């Protein structure tokens, strides 16, 4: 119980930081968000393909490597 209590402020800080990051991401310009979506696609595609789900990662003409 005591260990749990000492963890609480740290966990609360981590959750707050995570929340702040999501709000920061929400405030990005749209083109940057689209590039982030493509990064998410690149991460998710191998997992989905391994499950037999056919997906294609977008090929953005305006993407900076």
């Amino acid at each position, binding site marked *: 119980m005591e260990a749990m209590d000492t963890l609480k402020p740290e966990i609360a800080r981590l959750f707050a930081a995570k929340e702040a990051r*999501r*709000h920061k991401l929400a405030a990005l310009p749209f083109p940057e968000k689209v590039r982030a979506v493509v990064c998410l696609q690149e991460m998710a595609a191998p997992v989905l393909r391994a499950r037999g789900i056919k*997906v294609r990662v977008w*090929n953005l003409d305006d993407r900076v490597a």
Partner: protein
Amino acid sequence: MKRTLQVLNELERGGVIERYAIGGAMGATFYVEPLLTFDLDVFVVLPQSTAGLLSLAPLYEALRARGYTEEGECVFIEGVPVQFLPAYNALLDEALMDARETSYEEAPTRVVRAEHLIAICLQTGRDKDRERVRIFREQAELDMNYLAGVLQRHGLEGKWKQWTP
């Protein structure tokens, strides 16, 4: 995606579609954190045929003529799978009419308003729509008066109360 949007604009200018706006997860991404999606959902108002029917066939034909191929429900336009969804009810008609004018890398485009995207989620009613409504409430800047009007006009106030206790 810039080229994809330019193609959509060309289709609109040519009268193949009357009006379009980005919806779905990419529409939501305009207002909230980036959401994983593999399709670009595009709501469209289609011109009526002489028989008074609405059909996606002329749109697909126009895209085929430009060399874009279909795969399942999508058409690959400049590296992006686009799913066209014709406006099939009063809520979507209104969402398209009031869609927000914006630009993506200098390509003009339209995105469905956050308040309409919420209403569409309520109307569709899947688990992922409920989660999306939660994200909208948490992260998007919403015009609550405008949202109240949309919900009232389309009979979604009960669902909103149910989903947002």
